[in-house]
């Protein structure tokens, strides 16, 4: 069973990520008094893109490798995480630091593609994407580290309850607040969709991509969003754990749907920030997350 779990993770995430995306789009539409697309629209989009022509404006290998790398790195993260509060066979050999680095690697792939694409808008988007990643990664890292500090381990097996491990303390509540405030940035949605900025930069880093390459990028973004929703559920909602594996998975998925609803609602009601405003906002979040870590070390 432990050896099938990574496979279950990958299948569940691959199959459900577009559905959550559909939920997000539907909700946004409803808030804006539109009908909105059907829930399964993202599946149609991906399938359509897979059948389209792959336009290559760079003609070099970094351009071709980038979407694959973005997809692969997030998929490895998905395979190793203890989804449904169960650690699979891979979790014992991986730890939180690796997860942070792999997520960064996925971001780097987006950047590499943008740089290879040579488009000026793409490069502006890439520059913003990297800045966002640098400023938001510490919050993600500290969410994982909070659990590590409390449980004295960084591995994914033992640190499964992450931040809420060893009980809810002041530090956990503080980190939860910080995570919620960073959620839109993790998901790359308004008011922090600064890198893609459709109206301003026309999808930024992805501008030169089309067809299957774009589908891979889109799918990895959906997977990433789903991972961040899962991390929230896993780190801060430990009471969803019943001990029955399928039930735990369902409960986590249901909670993740709620997280997506929050992302959708906040996204639909907030205008985009400028990158310099966002950077200052992230800096404040980092400071509060550091405070939470300090409290955790002190045993609060």
């Amino acid at each position: 069973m432990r050896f099938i779990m990574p496979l279950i993770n990958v299948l569940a995430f691959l199959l459900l990520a577009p559905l959550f995306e559909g939920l997000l789009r539907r909700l946004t539409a409803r808030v804006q008094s539109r009908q909105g697309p059907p829930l399964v629209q993202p599946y149609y989009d991906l399938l359509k893109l897979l059948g389209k022509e792959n336009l290559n404006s760079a003609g070099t290998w970094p351009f071709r490798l980038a979407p694959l790398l973005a997809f692969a790195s997030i998929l490895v993260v998905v395979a190793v995480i203890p989804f449904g509060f169960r650690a699979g066979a891979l979790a014992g050999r991986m730890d939180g630091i690796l997860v942070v680095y792999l997520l960064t690697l996925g971001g780097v792939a987006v950047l590499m593609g943008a740089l290879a694409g040579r488009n000026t808008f793409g490069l502006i988007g890439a520059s913003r994407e990297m800045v966002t990643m640098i400023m938001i990664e510490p919050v993600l890292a500290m969410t994982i580290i909070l659990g590590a500090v409390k449980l004295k381990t960084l591995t994914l097996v033992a640190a499964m309850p992450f931040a809420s491990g060893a009980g809810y303390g002041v530090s956990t509540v503080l980190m939860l607040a910080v995570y919620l405030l960073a959620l839109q940035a993790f998901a790359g949605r308004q008011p922090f969709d600064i890198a893609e900025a459709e109206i301003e930069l026309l999808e930024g880093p992805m501008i030169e991509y089309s067809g299957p390459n774009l589908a891979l990028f889109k799918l990895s973004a959906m997977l990433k969003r789903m991972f961040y929703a899962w991390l929230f559920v896993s780190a801060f909602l430990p009471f969803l754990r019943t001990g029955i594996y399928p039930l735990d998975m369902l409960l986590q998925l249901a909670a993740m749907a709620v997280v997506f609803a929050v992302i959708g609602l906040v996204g639909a009601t907030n205008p985009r920030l400028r990158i310099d405003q966002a950077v200052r906002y992230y800096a404040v979040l980092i400071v509060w997350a550091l405070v939470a870590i300090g409290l955790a070390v002190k045993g609060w």
Partner: protein
Amino acid sequence: MRLLTPLFLAFLILAAAAVLSAATARARRFSGWLHFALAVEAAAFLVWTGIRAAAGHGMEEAVLVRLGPFVVPFLIDGLAGLFLIVIGVVSAASALYSVRYMEYYAGYSLRGYYFRLPLFVLGMAALVTIDDLSIGFSLAWQIMTIASFLLIRFETRVKAAVRAAGRYLLLMELAWALIVGAGILLGGRAGDSLHEIGLKAAAANPAVLAAALALLLLGFGLKAGVFPLGQLWLPDAHSAAPSPVSALLSGVMLKTGIFGLIRIFFFLAPAAGPGFDPRFWGGLLAAVGTVTLFIGTLQCVKQSDAKRLLAFSSIGQIGYIVLGLGAALFLSASDEPALAGLAAAAILGALFHVLNHAIFKGLLFLTSGSLLYATGTKDLNRLGGLVKWMPVSAVLAAIASLAVAGMPPGSGFASKWTIIASTLLAGQGWVLLVPFGIVALFTSAVTLACYVKFFGLAFTASGAEAAAAKPIREVPGSMLAAKIGLAAICLAQGLLPFLFVRLIAGALGHSVGFAMGWFFESGAWSRAVGASASGLRIESLLGPAAGAAVSPLLVLALLLLALLLGVWLRRSAGSRERAVPTWLCGYQTLNESTRFTDRGMFAALKNLFRWTGGRTSPKE
């Protein structure tokens, strides 16, 4: 005793290389090959000596050698062995690279270059094997300093290079005075080994001991390039020197400062007994390391000159090493086995990063040399798109960039992971170590930004064709060969970290007078740090599970599997690829005024961290 013979043979060969290749310097390429042939032979002796010493065939105590009128203690133990290996490998690569690279400086005679380069290597090898703070140390230090000073001012017609070299010489002489002064302060006399100085220091006043240690920290800190001392000379000197020399400066010479810090704080000072407080000095080192890595890397983001970028990043990477050393020193004072285990992990991580940094930074400086050789510029604003003309260099640069940025499964990942994991888990030893680890983690994302920019703007993006004076071509085979050799080692370090961790642990177990030596000698370290083909583990010794674990090979396998799935998805609907022109956002042509250059890259981040400083051009 036996190891002195190959070491002195290496010295002799290096001296012969200096004389012979300088004598034939008029036949430029012949002299280069002659120099390489001799340098690689010397390097082989150095590496062999190093490996023997690291494997426990080294010396049990310092051996007095009479050099002319002086008596100098030599000590080739495990630690010296590790640094000899680094010196050997990087100097061989740099010698091979020099042969064709020096064509770039057609207007300069190579006589001086080939005379000084082997002497520079000789000085460094002598510095890590001589075990005193008086005459022997001064000899080695001066050979190393003066040779490198002359190498940095190789381009005597460039004013900035001459100035940078002058400041370098001044500061290194100051460092020398500080270090020798500290030795005298501690009561050391000519010919005293470090251990003897340590024993004498035990009798000294604690205030005197503290003052001497502060002087030594300043002196070796200047050499290693820690904040704020490194900023005074390092970026200007590294970017002014010819690239093979920069590779040696950054890959190896900075490490002699690290070597000094280790010898002082883990060998000399503990012998001084209760007067030395490892918690204070360890905490200080860890704090200095954290500030160095943070500031150095943020200054690195702002650079547009490829070599300045690499130089500032060297300061940042040295910070990681110093942080690891400081954490190890602090935690080694603890009686708790869990914390002692983390101390072992931290020092292993620090020394592993020494090995890794030497290789990938050597490779990166050689890459910057290739940029200069092929296009005539190292300004990232003017470079771009080189992957089309220099495909092999591009792949090698990508390997090194991923390694330095700490991306799994690159080599930087394995060592940074060890340092960061051991600091994050050591919160109950010292609360501040956790934020230090977090800063280190944050900073490695910034490092990534630097190298995405370095690789992206040089090899992908666009622009170089406009800047280059002549058609761009891939660099010659011998230059590529030097880089490929380093890249192969870099890959091995990333994928098989256990080999190197075991080498280092073995070497530390055979280091004479090492404060944590028993831990490595008895094999107790392997209960704290697991190193096997399946990856690295840090045991937490507190609970049932490991503290932290990664398996680079498994990560690589998983990534490849996922990549294959991606390839299959991309092809699943029979989609074809078609080459199209880039959309120019409505402009007719992509030119200097419409393309995105390095100036705008990460502008928001640069603005947020404006206060960290970092000059983008050499001081006039």
